[in-house]
């Protein structure tokens, strides 16, 4: 089957109950049809380069961040003291 033949074909897809709930909640929150939410979500998934959310987070550890102000650095020291 070519990609062209696949495009536009009507398909039946069953989602797990928790995914169903997420789709319905997003559709209600954004006031959009369910089909539009599904289409956008599939496209977003296809653009994720095959990385799970966890792998994606880990892959960003070496990416540059916004420079820290002295105030933020001081806050971080307090945060670490509280949490570690």
């Amino acid at each position, binding site marked *: 089957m070519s990609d062209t033949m696949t495009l536009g074909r009507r398909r039946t897809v069953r989602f797990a109950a928790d995914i169903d709930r997420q789709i319905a909640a997003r559709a209600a929150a954004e006031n959009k049809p369910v089909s539009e939410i599904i289409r956008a979500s599939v496209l977003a998934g296809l653009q994720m380069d095959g990385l799970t959310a966890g792998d994606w987070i*880990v892959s960003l550890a070496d990416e540059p961040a*916004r420079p820290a102000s002295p105030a933020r650095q001081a806050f971080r020291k307090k945060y670490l003291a509280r949490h570690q």
Partner: protein
Amino acid sequence: MKAILDAGPLIAAWDKSDAYHHWAQTTLKKYSGPYLTTELVLGEVAHMTGKDAAIFEGVRTGRFIIGGSLKTDAAAMQRVLFACAHRDLADASIVALSEKEPHLPVLTSDKRHFSTHRRADQTALPMVAPQ
């Protein structure tokens, strides 16, 4: 595997000097997501790490799912805050989220505080934290 995500693991995963950096990276690979979290938590992470762009990207691509808000979860969050002085708003938002998704594990590096948190039905959070 879906999970509820507190600020600590995300901060630690993005900060190599954090004591829980290795634990966070290993845990996030195991609980692959997407992660249910709150804007309060992501605001804390943005302030601590400076990785604002990554947070926007995570929300846009559905890796982070915003599961609550001050408006929708106000009652639950106020109950959590009033129950104990050492809880902050982001902690309370995670407890409120766990009340809505009681079976999802809560990823946190703050075992000391989160082990004392209780949901409305007085159950403990199903916590995944460093030993």
